[in-house]
Structure formats: structure tokens, C-alpha cells
């Protein structure tokens, strides 16, 4: 290769790197950082399947809310209302939501049961979904999108799974269609330790969510109390009947 050609190649690389770094520093990078795409082409570069997967970090949600608020000229109340509805949809208080967009121009994807095709790796352990959009179970050509939810807390200990996690990995099985067969898996990684959920869960929306949670908790406790009260009443009645019978027998 001539010196001139090498120079052109090196300059091209430097240009691309500088663009890459400047793009990374832009505002939209907050949104794009948590939104990853894997596009798998077939051998003749015609057919493809594209997976875009979004991890709803606190940073991402915050940026999304701000973007929507700016685009729609919302008041503070409207913004808080949107944030509240979003958080409720995401089920963040108990699940880790991941949004999947699939654009398939290759042979149909057949993913039923979808819950068996995806997993989330946290701290070297793998977790299966607790819920997902059932449309992923149907044969898929073209576009489809939906949520998949993983547990946020350990089932046995109740501890948050993400507490000491640095990088988590979401995997889709390669066996879902011919174009992906032969691959180990289709992976998406996020450095979740760069997120700060505590900073986000403040404000009116967070208070409303907490209020919702407390009201549900209150309802559950009241129900438990009513059950216990009912048992107590039954025991009292039984005691009264026995005492009455004892009195009756002793009086003979």
C-alpha cells in the first residue's frame, strides 16, 4: 500500500474517531447510551434482523421525560403526571423493564415461548422474565415492540439484585430464526453502575408512586387484620359456647 493511501486511511480513521467522540459527548448520547442496537445481516446484505433494546435506567427516564416535556411544552404538573404514568407502566418498583423493538426482514422469527428465549445476567447469575409482551410469542416478520420484565429483588432474600452490579447483560437466544442460528447469543450490555436511581426517585411523581404503594400495602394489611379479627371473633364465640356449656353442666 502506498504512503498516500495509508495517509488517507489514517486521516479517515481520525475523522471518524473525532466524530465518534463528539457524538458521544452530545445530549442525545444520554438516550442513545441506554438504547443498543444489534443488526444482523444475511450473507448477501439484503435480509436483516435488527434488535433495539432499551434499559430503562434512571438517567434514561429522566432524559426521556425532559425531552417529552420540552417537545410538548408541558407545565411542571403535566411533566410530573407523565413521569408518574411512565413509572407506573414500567413497574419499576418491583421489576427491571427492558423494551425490545424488532425489525425483521429475514425469515420469520418464531420465539414462543418468548420467556425461554431471553435472560438477564446480573453478577454472574441468570434470571428469567417474570412477564413479557405476549405478542412476541407470535411468528414475527416486520416490526414489533414490547416490554419484558425481570425481577428487581431476590426472591428469597428480598435484596435488590442491582445493588453491587457493575455491568449487566441481556441475551436473546440465537435459535429464534435462521439468520441468527449458529451464533452463541445476541447480547446487549449496560454499565448500570454509572446510573443513579436514588437521584431520580424524587418529586411529585415519586411521591404519588409511593402513595400508591402505601395504599396497596394499607389495603393488604387491613385485609389481613379483618381475617385475623374474623378468626378472633370465631374463637371468642367458641369460647363463649364452651363456657356456657361448662356453666350449664356445673349447675346440674
Amino acid at each position, binding site marked *: 500500500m502506498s504512503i498516500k*493511501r495509508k495517509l488517507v486511511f489514517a486521516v479517515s480513521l481520525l475523522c471518524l474517531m473525532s466524530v*465518534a467522540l463528539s457524538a458521544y459527548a452530545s445530549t442525545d448520547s444520554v438516550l442513545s447510551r441506554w438504547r443498543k442496537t444489534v443488526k444482523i445481516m444475511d450473507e448477501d446484505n439484503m435480509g436483516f434482523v435488527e434488535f433495539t433494546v432499551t434499559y430503562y435506567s434512571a438517567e434514561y427516564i429522566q432524559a426521556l421525560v425532559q425531552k417529552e416535556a420540552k417537545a410538548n411544552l408541558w407545565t411542571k404538573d403535566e411533566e410530573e403526571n407523565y413521569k408518574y404514568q411512565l413509572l407506573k407502566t414500567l413497574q419499576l418498583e418491583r421489576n427491571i423493564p427492558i423494551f425490545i423493538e424488532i425489525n425483521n426482514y429475514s*425469515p420469520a422469527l418464531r420465539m*414462543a415461548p418468548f420467556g425461554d428465549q431471553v435472560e438477564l445476567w446480573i453478577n*454472574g447469575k441468570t434470571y428469567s422474565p417474570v412477564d413479557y409482551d405476549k405478542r412476541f410469542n407470535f411468528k414475527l416478520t416486520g416490526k414489533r415492540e414490547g416490554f419484558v420484565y425481570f425481577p428487581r429483588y431476590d426472591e428469597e432474600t428480598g435484596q435488590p439484585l442491582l445493588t453491587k452490579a457493575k455491568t449487566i447483560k441481556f441475551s436473546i437466544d440465537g*435459535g429464534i430464526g*435462521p439468520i441468527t442460528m449458529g451464533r452463541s447469543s445476541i447480547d446487549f450490555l*449496560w454499565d448500570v453502575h454509572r446510573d443513579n436511581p436514588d437521584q431520580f426517585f424524587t418529586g411529585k411523581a415519586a411521591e404519588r408512586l409511593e402513595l400508591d404503594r402505601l395504599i396497596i400495602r394499607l389495603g393488604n394489611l387491613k385485609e389481613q387484620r379483618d381475617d385475623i379479627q374474623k378468626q378472633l371473633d370465631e374463637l371468642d364465640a367458641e369460647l363463649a359456647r364452651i363456657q356456657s356449656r361448662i356453666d350449664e353442666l356445673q349447675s346440674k
Partner: protein
Amino acid sequence: MKKLCALLAVVALVAFAAPAFAANPFMDVPMNHWAYDAVGQLAARGIISGYPDGTFKGNQPITRYEMASVTARALAVIDMEKASKQDVEMLKRLVVEFKDELDALGVKVDKIDSRVAVLEENIGGWKFWGELRFDAKFEGEKNLYNDEYTLEGDKEFNLNRFRIWMSKQIDENTKFVARLGTSDSTTKYAPTRWERYYVETKLPYDIKMTAGLWLFDWEGDSGLYIDEDAMFGDYGMKGFWFQKSFGLGDVQAMIGHNDSYSNGADGIFNTADDVNSDYMFYGLRANFNFNEQFRFALNGLMRAYDDLNNRDESVYWADFTFNFNPNIAFKGAYFMEDLDTAYRAGEDSPKAYKAIFDVKQDAFKFTSIWLEYAKFDEGFNVWNANNNGDMYAYDAYGASVLINRNWDETSVLFASLKQQWNDKWATYERYLTADFDTTGVDDATNWTFGVLYYYTPAITFDLAYDKVDWGDSTAAGMRTGDDNIVRLRTHVKF
């Protein structure tokens, strides 16, 4: 029209459960209308209802809400046990189409989904896929260099590829996969073969084992090539493949055997050396993601020939990916070979490397970019030669830029761009130049320009122009001049 089609779909769904004749309750549906019985059957099953004035108004367009309502009622009355496969498929399509409206009506899609899953399991649990590629090719020169573009003449209409995939989940941990197909465009009536057959099963300690004839492609796993330009992977291998994941990292091991049959005519292994080419195949790979930005892998492969001494060959390589952001990545790989006998020419331990910038269209909005620079030592020997033993393919359209040039060091600059304008249209451009250090050998170049039309996600048309130029002042015995081809490819997938 939409109303008519949807109505017919629902008719098909419930026809098996409805009485053969039913009185039509709507005053405005004439008895001699072709849909009279169907409307009557649907009304009898409670799936459709008319307007309060007793009319059906069959010529009015239907809204999505009305269609969702009809689908919901069909779901309520349908007896899945008696449904056929076609009924279920149609019902699934309707449910997907009207999912949001059904949700609004309080119909739970997951309930119908579980019933469908049970039914599919009863049908046999098989999944099928297929694809067909058909080419119309027009070459610039007839029979230049022994049909460089793999044509029988200067024009050809031919099957390029036909494949049928099938898969069955045998039990919770085991799956069977097979592929029947042909891809030999140079034969008029190419034979159909089992191109894949394997089982995947989970062993203790969460080790996944694949046994049979499966696709081997570690370069694909690392994202190191596009088109069909893998050097040591992307072909069928018979044997055993073990994978163990540790979350951010995984290790893989495999052992296989290549049976050459007669003169490589099986068409599966694509080996350049056809005589006495039975060999054991060993591989080991360790891949680790340090974080979302950086990935690193070590790979080793060995061929140990059954009958030929002093011909064993090994390759070891390290590759990495650095993601500047989700849309821009820098990748690289460094290869070292150990050849017992340099049976082609040159070094017995040649090396090669490649550096790649992989930019998705989202980064610059108007185009994706694949920019690759590769350098090969003298005698570097790749194992996946797609085109007549070419050193390194780069031959997506048939002509090999690097053919019979690998005597000294070679460097390659390859750029591939693609613009996805919308859901229907895309364009692409490829440029490749190869610089051979051999004295008296010109640089070779390859240009491609193409337009893609996605008629539907399942049917694609590709019109491409490809030109290869080997230069004019090249030594005797090597290719000179240029040639080109226009190719219209029809690709159908299901």
C-alpha cells in the same frame, strides 16, 4: 375491502363450529348475496350484531374498534380444540393486529396465547422456515477467465439458493434443528442435501452441547466480517461444540472431523485442497466483555490431517471490539498461523491483521459505514475459500479480486456503505482495492453499486452492478483487464 377481508377471516375461523345454514337476521342482506350464509352463521354465534334498526350495512367500512370487537367475540366462542392450524394462524394474526384494541376491550391476549401454545404443541411443536434466492445475471464479457462470475456464458437465470429449516423442541433442555437446501448455482439441477442437522442440549453445570452438523462461525460472533468474507469460519462442521457462559464471559470448545468425500463435491466444506483432506478439527475460544465498551477474545483452531504427515496447520488469533458509543465501534484482529508444511508458498508461520471501523446509520443518520484495512503476510492461508481457492474472498458478486495473487505480502482496503432510506428502499456501495507487493503485479480494484427494494419484509429485490479490475501490466499467468456484471436478485423469506 378491509371489512370484507376481516369478515372472511373470522368466517374461516368459526366455520367449523357454526351450523351449516343459519337464518340471517338482518333485513338488508339479500338472500342471494354470496355472503348471506356467512353473515347468518356469525350472527347465530353472536360474533356480529347489526345496528339497532335491524340492518347490517354490509357495504360500510369497518373501524378498528369494530374489528377488534368482532375478534373479541370470536375469541369468546371459538373452540380451540377443533380449530385447524390455518384457523389458529389467522386468529393469531388478528390478535396481533388488534392487540391494543382488544386490550382496551378487556380481552387478555395472553389467555388466547396460552391456548394457542397448547394447540401448537399438540400439532407437533415443529417450526419451519424457508428462503429462496433467484438470480438474473448479465456479465460484461463471456467466459473471461473461466467464468469468473460463475456464469455459464454471459447471461444466466438461475436458482442461487433454496433452503428449508426445521426445528423441534424435544424436551425442556433439548432441541433438534435441520436444514435442507441447495446453493450450487453452477449446476443446472443442483442436488438438495441436508446442510445442517444437529441437537442442542444442556449438560450439567449449564454447559450447552451441540452435536451433529452445525454452523461454525467465531468470527461472526465477534462481528469481524460482512458479506461472506470470513477467513476461518462460516461453514458447516461435523462434531461436538461445547459452550459455557459466565455472564460477561464465555468459553467454547469444539472437536470435529472433516470428511472430504470425493474431491470436495459435497459442497459443504468449501475446502480448496480436495485430495486427502480428511482431518480432525479442534477449537478453543475464550471471550470476555470487560464492560459495555470493551470486549476481547482469544481463539485457536487446529487441523490434524488423517493421512498426510507434516501438513497439520493451526491458527491463533486475538480480536477485540471497542465501542465509542452504541453506534460507532472500532474492531481489530491479529492472526498467527503455524503451518507444518508451507504447501502453497512462502512462510510457514505467516501473520495477518485487520482493523475495522463499524459505524451504524444512526450515527450520521444518512449512511452506515464499514471501513476495513487488512494486511496479509506472504503465504497466509485462509480456511474458508469461497471462490476456487481464493486467498481471501471479498467476492460477494462472484469475481475474486485477490485470485491467484497471494505470492507476496498483500494489503486490502475495503469500504462498504449502506443507506436505508425508508422501510422500502435502500442503496449501497462497495469499494475494494488490493495492493500486492509482488513486482510487476498491478493493484486490483472492485466497485459495486446496488439498489434494494423491500416489496414486503419477506420479499426483496436487489439490482446491483459490480466491476472488477485486475490492472493491465500484470505478469503472465495472472489475471488482467476488467469485467463486470449486472445482477437482479429476488429473495423470498418466510
